[in-house]
């Protein structure tokens, strides 16, 4: 089969799969079966976090430019698109419905909102990126943080988008929208990373001066990566706003940017699958910890009997839910202490892993070092090398 046909076929399968799962996730369910709304909501939020983590990974993981302003661009996308859908969405949709039908009109308006949100966020990224990307390391980090806070406070003072009371937004997004765009994000970032642009970005991460000496216009590439990353963050903002139906500037504080950074560091910087994994873990972990106490108690009562549980243990387990964020933070520190390169490091998860794992027990001859072929080992990241230098 020609590649194009193969890819179109794959896209078709993915879309069909998403449509089916979307039905399963919706309130009506599929053939009477459906996911409880609480879990459906978490899964959708995980999808939004995937977009955020993957897009931040482009600028921070692959280009090595440390940005703590991702929530700001998310806010720009969310609020600009919400302005559109709140003030113009209804009349435009009605006039469009007469031409193409209600369902398509609904989808087209939201698509327009996504495009507008992404473009405005990209513009914000350009305005922030050009001056700040001259700075390096921690200075860049703190300036991006500052810009994000300024963006947030400016939005807070615009009365037409709700100001401090919050902004009620029509609900457009659902599982299908979020995951379709999560896949599009992953494809975009994957293709950029594996193109000549990606090579340039990685070379900037490895050594900016050397990259410049090799004739790479580092400023241009850094701004390019920053703008694309901001646009994708804006897209995530559009989806989040139109899924939650409510926007508050409190949701875009710098702690939100930290959360996204935690996702990519946890998953492994410079790994796309790592970012996806990190986003999923960070979305679900605090919620899992919420139910940890009751689950432990039922486990304990199954082992030693409900009556034998000491009262102190019982109250401790009951209060465990209050401490879920404490446990979350402690786990985060623990993971950093034991696996500082993140879950995936800079590697990518691929199906060949499974194949290799299956083949290994039969005594397959190791190729290259440690049974991994040279090509699969990939280049050592600059982080590892710098570490070695620092350690002497």
């Amino acid at each position, binding site marked *: 089969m020609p590649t194009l046909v193969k890819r179109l076929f794959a896209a078709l399968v993915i879309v069909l799969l998403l449509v089916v799962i979307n039905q399963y996730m919706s309130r009506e369910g599929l053939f009477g079966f459906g996911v409880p709304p609480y879990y459906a909501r978490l899964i959708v939020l995980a999808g939004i976090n995937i977009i955020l983590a993957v897009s931040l990974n482009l600028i921070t993981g692959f280009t090595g430019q440390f940005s703590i302003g991702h929530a700001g661009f998310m806010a720009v996308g969310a609020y600009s698109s919400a302005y559109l859908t709140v003030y113009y969405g209804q009349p435009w949709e009605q006039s469009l419905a007469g031409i193409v039908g209600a369902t398509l009109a609904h989808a087209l308006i939201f698509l327009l909102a996504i495009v507008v949100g992404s473009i405005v966020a990209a513009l914000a990224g350009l305005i922030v990126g050009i001056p700040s990307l001259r700075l390096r390391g921690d200075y860049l980090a703190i300036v991006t*943080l500052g810009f994000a806070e300024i963006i947030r406070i400016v939005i807070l003072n615009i009365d037409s988008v709700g100001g401090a009371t919050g902004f009620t937004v029509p609900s457009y997004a659902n599982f299908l929208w979020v995951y379709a765009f999560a896949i599009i994000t992953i494809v975009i970032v994957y293709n950029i990373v594996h193109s000549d642009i990606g090579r340039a970005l990685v070379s900037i991460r490895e050594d900016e001066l050397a990259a410049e000496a090799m004739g790479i216009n580092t400023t241009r590439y850094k701004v390019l990566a920053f703008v694309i990353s901001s646009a994708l963050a804006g897209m995530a903002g559009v989806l989040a706003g139109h899924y939650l139906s409510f926007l508050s500037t409190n949701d875009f504080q710098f702690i939100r940017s930290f959360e996204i*950074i935690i996702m990519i560091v946890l998953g492994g910087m410079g790994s796309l699958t790592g970012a996806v994994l990190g986003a999923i873990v960070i979305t679900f972990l605090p919620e899992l910890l919420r139910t940890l106490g009751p689950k432990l108690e039922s486990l304990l009562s199954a082992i030693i009997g409900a009556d034998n549980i000491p009262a102190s243990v019982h109250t401790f387990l009951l209060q465990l839910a209050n401490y879920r964020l404490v446990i979350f933070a402690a786990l985060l520190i623990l993971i950093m202490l034991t696996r500082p390169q993140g879950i995936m490091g800079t590697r990518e998860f691929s199906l060949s892993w499974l194949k290799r794992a299956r083949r290994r027990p039969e005594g397959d001859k190791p190729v290259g070092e440690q049974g991994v072929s040279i090509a699969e080992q990939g280049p050592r990241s600059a982080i590892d090398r710098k570490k070695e230098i620092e350690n002497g």
Partner: protein
Amino acid sequence: MDTFVQQLINGLTIGAIYALIALGYTMVYGILRLINFAHGDIYMVGAFVGYFLAFQLGFAAGPSVVGLTVVLIGSMIAAALVGMAIERFAYRPIRKYARMTTLITAIGVSLLIENLFVAKLGAAPRAFPQLLREQSYTLFGNAAISKSQILIFAVSVLLMLLLQWVIFKTKVGTAMRAVSFNLNSAKLMGINTDFIISFTFALGSALAAAAGVLTAQYNPQIDPLMGIITGLKAFVAAVLGGIGNIPGAVLGGLLIGIAETFVVGYGQNVGVPTTFRDAVAFAILILVLLFRPTGLLGSTVQEKV
């Protein structure tokens, strides 16, 4: 003119607090190149230790100079221990790893302290007992300075002079400066770098705790999340002055304090709403960094391959 002097006094008061916290950020950064995001929470811990000390030791009943001194020094010692513990158990094991890892750990420690306090004590604000008989003195015209403001100025100047003495006149201070120049060379010269780093954390944390107790005298409301935004602004102050530079941290803190008060006091006259109070620190920072990328007093380092 009266209001101008009044705004200046209020601005310097807040600025002195920012400066005290910024000193801890800048010292730790100077030595470890680590943004210690948990530092703002140490400030909060200091305020809470002061709160509990005041109640446990019975000083909360009425204002007394002895009570204030004991509470201030007690919370400084407690915070120094907390700072050293954080360094020992969270930062030391990962010191050799990449910058991003240490940064995430710092954020993790910050979240841990905040959430622990929220879970234990609840997020509702508490009233800090008055340890100082509040009184206002009229300077000239209508500008007034309160006793707690005088206290903040006096204590922070005293602590800054003390810090200056420690850093430039004592053996341990010389070692601190050596470590901040180059950690490995300092180690080769026989300096116990682990001890020096620990000492730096203790020093910075004690200053932050002092800031916590002093703020609580000026504005007697403390809550477990009070360190987030104050800590962030103090960090901005440290970067503004040139991170790693001690006079820079003081200058940055005072500048941001004054700018903030002026936005609240005069902003409305030129169409800037008071809610921009929190944005002004960042705006100044961005402007300064664009023209002087290493801050006001920071020295430029030539980059080599």
